[in-house]
């Protein structure tokens, strides 16, 4: 059976790069891997979703209801938006940082209170302030690598070196050290 990871966040947060790094690691581990992403409209600060699926043989590139082993949420309520994709017994890894969408900014709707607590009551949830750790690593942009670090803890068969090598290969050279640091902060969080 293929395993599924769903990465959700806000356009511009680096979800695409994260899915590519995870995909690269899994290919190097010898899995059949499919990634799926949507470009265009969704890049403009909208809700974005990418999928990573891996196993001996993967058919559908998308993750559907009740199929995700992991949801990696880059923002506090985006995990909630896609929670129906999580399989029974799956794990939600979520950033606690809140980014207000336009309907909240304009006052048309309100942002849910204590989303992390509510999520924890519904599924196995690992929540952390990835933005704070990314700042500690040296850049707010490294939220994606921090969260990948957290995910890596849940994938014990994959060696730390494979992750670090993927970062070296896929991240722009001048940001490699910073991202490795962010990854380790997430991994040890």
């Amino acid at each position: 059976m293929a395993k599924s990871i769903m990465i959700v966040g806000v356009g511009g947060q680096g979800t695409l790069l994260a899915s590519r790094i995870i995909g690269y690691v899994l290919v190097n581990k010898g899995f059949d891997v499919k990634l799926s992403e949507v470009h265009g409209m969704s890049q403009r600060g909208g809700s974005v979703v990418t999928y990573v699926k891996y196993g001996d043989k993967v058919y559908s590139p998308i993750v559907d209801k009740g199929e995700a082993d992991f949801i990696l949420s880059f923002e506090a309520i985006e995990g909630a938006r896609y929670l129906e994709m999580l399989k029974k017994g799956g794990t939600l890894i979520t950033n606690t940082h809140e980014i207000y969408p336009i309907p909240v900014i304009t006052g048309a709707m309100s942002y849910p209170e204590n989303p992390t607590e509510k999520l924890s009551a519904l599924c196995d949830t690992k929540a952390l302030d990835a933005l704070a750790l990314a700042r500690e690593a040296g850049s707010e942009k490294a939220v994606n690598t921090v969260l990948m670090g957290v995910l890596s803890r849940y994938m014990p068969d994959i060696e730390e070196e494979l992750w670090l090598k993927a970062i070296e290969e896929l991240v722009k050279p001048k940001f490699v050290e910073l991202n490795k640091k962010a990854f380790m902060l997430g991994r040890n969080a």
Partner: protein
Amino acid sequence: MLGNEAIARGLYEAGVKYISSYPGTPSTEISEVAAEYDEMYAEWAPNEKVALESALGASLAGARSFTAMKHVGLNVAADPLFTSAYTGVNGGLVVCVADDPAMHSSQNEQDSRHYARAAKLPMLEPADSAECRDFAKAAYELSERFDTPVLLRTCTRVAHSQSLVEQREREERALMPYAKNPAKYVMNPGFAYKRHFAVEDRLQEMARYSETCAFNYADIRDTSVGFVCAGTCYQYVREVFPDASIYKIGLSFPLPLESIKAFAAKVEKLYVVEELDGVFETEIRAAGIHVDGGKDLFGNIGELSQSKIAAAMGVPAKENASFTEALPARPPVMCAGCPHRGVFYTLSKLKLTVLGDIGCYTLGASAPLSAVDSVVCMGASVSMLHGFNTVRPEGSGKCVAVIGDSTFLHSGITALTDIAYNRSVSTVLILDNSITGMTGHQQNPATGYTLKMQAVPPVSLEKVCEGVGIRRVRSVDPSDLKALEEAIKEELAADEPSVIICRKPCMLLKYVKPNPPFSIEREKCKACRSCMKLGCPALRFEAGKALIDNTQCVGCGLCKQLCAFGAIKEA
């Protein structure tokens, strides 16, 4: 590799020499990646019609040629498409069309398979990245063997999914010899009549070929159910039914109806699974094959997925969690610092009727700006304004069109010519952000660079407008709200056609350096919410006062211009 990258790889290996495309999600990366290979010429054309015609020219000259576009792009290129079916090719010609079921980034979800039928052209449909590469290469063999352009159809889930792809070397190919042949290439009625027979003969020959084509095959497993499917639907069906029999279609027009009939005879129940219209189902039924389920089960709107197929087939749903509280939607928004924001703020403030167009500026339709009255297709803003003002001349002073630089060059010029020629008193705003933004930053004829990043003389939008007969042409910096409002009022008051070019580069361009973030003095803020009318993602209300998010603000200064109390400061 992305499906799109794999197609580019296939082109490279097939020895393609000429690529001309116009960007459009989800087809854009094919040409961008192809441009990275030095052996292939690759360009952005001003629109899809020009792209296809130039590729046809390169084919006539003997080169393997290619063009890619999104589904609606094929509408623009439909005119040369239909007649290229008559002329056939010299060097192989492949037209890739990328559909977008569920409209992840499109204005409709038309089904391009109809074009293959209407234009009588063969169509290939890959189901993953490996097939993208294989089918792209095979398309050239087919094109040259049957003397026809070939359609290669993908969809978002094929184009934008990544899976493993094998690579081979490029086979360099000499140009095919060129010999003048008017009976084949001059499509006047006399010659075209004869060519129509050639088209019909070819179609019959292709139908016979389709029965033997290796891309169409029956995978017989459990025979209690059988599915007929192509492309991404194959992946969904296989995932839900690992043991079912499947007839997988790769060459999707002409369909291998005899082989499907033989497959149908082997299985107890036959289901046709296809996204959007019931194209296969209709043809399969018309061939006298009994179908147990198709569009009645799977519907013809939006994308399919494994869960939708499972539900339609009565397979129990997987157990899942759910979050029941209503969540605020997170629609795409104009970026902080977007040069379009000031324009739509002003149009909204002046309560104008705004005929909109397609690009990042379509977001001017969203709340709180809510400034746009219509969006139909590229270029339609300008021509619709002309029609609107012609029948409501008294309203001319309250009505504008907005169109981006790339969209204007794509199909706004002919529309502006209509305004100038037939003298409607219309005002057009060209939003020149020096890039094709919506599709992810492609160069265009007005930016001064080509797809391969060669510097070239940019098209002068002013001169184009003047050239078609507009006398009132002016440009304005849209971040100066006062100047912008004055310009719009003046041009709307004039009694002749006019163009305002709102010129400021996209904030996301590398050479545009963001300003340090602005900040708000809490004591001075009177909570009037004027600044909130901008719909800027960097502004929010917290504890009763406006607040600037300094991780997002790029210091464009629009909000400062709106604050009557001087509460907003530069860094």
